């Protein structure tokens, strides 16, 4: 097992480097955007004098590399800084939103992952049947509609006047878990529809890919039932690609749901990032970008570790 720990350590180190480069790219990217925080926040209602004064006050007149170095220095001491816009601590700001984002991602994943695995397995079992084709076609259809459109359709049918679910997930800060499940149901369902197809197709493909293997034929010749062959003999060997695609989709659920957040008024990180980019609120942009990149790196790492653990060749060396 020690080699797995070595791998984790190496990958974590690499992850830190990735985060560093991501922060640099985001920083430069935001630098290249027209206008700066002072101009954007004061907007049309600002005179050149106020803009200049605010810029001076926030230290935006320092050269670029100085500002980046300062920011990096603070980060290394665990300080994400304060929002330029309202002086709130970036870690507080992100902390609250991150909780929401993770909750929604977890909610959607809790529906989507088992669902897509099940559908993928069934589609592989009944491959080329009507069920397979119908599942495939409806999955493709559901991912070919834009997210916001899926959301609107769900709202029309499931919310609306006298609907079963609220069209808005903006819950009170003191909401309890049941309330959360109720209010976040539609966004979670939307995200489920968006990610299920990809995972289902990969599950199906990964399983079918193995069906020509000699050990599958062996299982058939041992008189095993088709279901057992798929679940017991094909699935464990197909886990690596499936885990990878699940990780990719989980990363998407965490980092890519700004549109769903907007439609369902869900206070997540995506909206915070978009707002902060528009306002050029650099510390917040950087903070969120780091969180996103870290989520991606960690999920990938977890996927690799799980894929490794699912493969006895890599766990039990000779």
């Amino acid at each position: 097992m020690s080699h797995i720990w070595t791998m984790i350590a190496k990958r974590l180190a690499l992850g830190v480097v990735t985060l560093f480069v991501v922060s640099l790219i985001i920083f430069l990217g935001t630098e290249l955007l027209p206008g700066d925080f002072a101009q954007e926040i004061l907007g049309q209602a600002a005179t050149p004098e106020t803009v200049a004064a605010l810029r001076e006050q926030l230290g935006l007149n320092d050269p670029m590399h100085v500002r980046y170095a300062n920011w990096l220095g603070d980060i290394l001491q665990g300080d994400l800084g304060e929002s330029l816009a309202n002086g709130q601590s970036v870690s507080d700001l992100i902390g609250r939103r991150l909780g929401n984002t993770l909750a929604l991602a977890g909610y959607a994943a809790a529906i989507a992952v088992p669902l897509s695995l099940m559908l993928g397995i069934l589609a592989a079992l009944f491959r080329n049947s009507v069920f397979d084709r119908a599942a495939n076609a409806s999955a493709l259809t559901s991912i070919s509609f834009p997210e916001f459109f899926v959301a609107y359709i769900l709202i029309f049918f499931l919310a609306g006047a006298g609907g079963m679910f609220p069209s808005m997930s903006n819950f009170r800060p003191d909401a309890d878990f049941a309330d959360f499940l109720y209010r976040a149901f539609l966004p979670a369902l939307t995200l489920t529809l968006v990610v299920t197809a990809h995972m289902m197709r990969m599950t199906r493909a990964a399983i079918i890919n193995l069906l020509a293997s000699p050990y599958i034929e062996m299982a058939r010749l041992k008189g095993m039932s088709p279901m057992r062959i798929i679940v017991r003999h094909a699935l464990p060997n197909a886990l690596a690609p499936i885990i990878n695609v699940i990780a990719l989709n989980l990363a998407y659920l965490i980092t890519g749901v700004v549109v769903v957040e907007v439609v369902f008024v869900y206070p997540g990180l995506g909206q915070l990032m978009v707002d902060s980019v528009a306002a050029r609120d650099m510390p917040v942009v950087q903070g969120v970008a780091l969180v996103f990149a870290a989520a991606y790196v960690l999920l990938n790492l977890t996927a690799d570790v799980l894929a490794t653990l699912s493969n006895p060749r890599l766990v039990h060396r000779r």
Partner: protein
Amino acid sequence: MKRPYGHMNVRRRTVLKGTAALGAAALVTPWGTPLRAQPTQGGTLRVAISTGGTTDSLDPGSWDSEFMNFQAHTRNGYLTEIGADGSLVPELAESWEASADASVWTFRIREGVQFHSGHVLTGEDVVASINHHRGADNTSAAAPIVADIADITADGMTVTVTLSAGNADFPFVMSDYHLPILPAQADGTIDPATTDGCGPFVMNNIEFGVRADYTRHDGYWKPGLPYFDAVEQVLIFDNAARQNALISGEVDYIDSADLNTVHLLERAPGINVLSITGTQHYGLPMDTRAAPFSDVNVRQALKYAINREQLVDTILNGYGSVGNDHPIGPGQRYFNAELEQKTFDPDRVAFHLREAGLSELTVDLNIADAAFAGAVDAAVLYAESAAAAGVTINVVREPNDGYWSNVWMQKPFVGTYWGGRPTEDWMFATAYAEGVPWNESYWSNERFNALLVSARSELDEDIRREQYFEMQEIVANEGGTIIPMFAAYVGAYSDALAHPEQVASNWRNDGHRIGERWWFA
């Protein structure tokens, strides 16, 4: 409740015309629902606001979104208040008087007003609150409007303001939403991060870009107010989501309806649409220093080449009124109703082009939807009508992000919007006076500038009206900005809500005072 679409159109048009004729703030009550006479107490008002962001802040100097503007009036009190009929009424200032040249103003502060924290209002609080926006290098958005204050002092419950030049409208300025009265600290400043206030509701929590929750301020000084027990204010940026929230009963009121589908929203059971034409207007400023816009005939030609009716019908879906190339709204005190309304007129375009010595005219219009909702579509429509009048307008689409930094007041022909200002002087002084920072068209007119200064301190109503009428005429015929339309504030609310007969037109949401003025039926 359902009515055919065609019917609605007719009704809308009639009402709008009526509005213009009345010259007063317009209120569209849906198909004559009788207004409840007797306000009732209780309930939680849930309001969805359309703009705002995580970058909002509690500092009054930074407020620029509808979200913060709404919380400003829900939580705070102001020295003066603009009433539902557009007149100025006392709020925290009981009364005021001016010196003869309108340069020294004395405000009498109301006794016994309590902040939510229990602190009792004095003149010191007023001075501290105003001073927050004053001083060199002050970054407050309100800094320009208090720049004329040379000195402000308090003596118990009296506050004396000395201006560097006379201003007859100064009490109006004190109603600006950036200038809430907040409790002074020991050192004579206010805490810009405070959630205290002396308005009708106590703020329990605020999450920027998300929501704010309030409960009734039991010690509120206005007798019997507010009617609601609590207010929940949420931000819903997406048009469809906002409308869905109203239809599905998640909120009671939305501040802005999608003009594309407002006719469908009106048909939804239990939903009322509220359309208010105030001072909000959309414009197309030209840089009057740059050729060909430096020639007034070119400007006039471009003004006659736009089809205003079509823009109001298409871009505003009828919710608004045509503009006459000056920024004064039909509901304002000194609106010049006698001025000839410009219309689409190819002959006049040809005439002015001849006067300018041009056989043809081609200009670029740099615009983005950031300028106003539907700005690009408006530009496309404008280009079509102008083409019919022999003028070629190339619509250059610019990115929304960065529009105000890189395009507006940088390119010679662009789009803009103004929420408007409650007084003629304020509006003109902000965007039309020579050399002011927001003079979008870099326009300068001697007669206009002189009139502006003299009207400002003029206390005689008739002379003042005459002067403002003339200024509107000068701006309309010589100014550098095409103002084709005044856009109504179109909101919607559920049947459960009731409001006074007259709804204010100075801002959205009954002057952002729904919390104080409305009730559950």
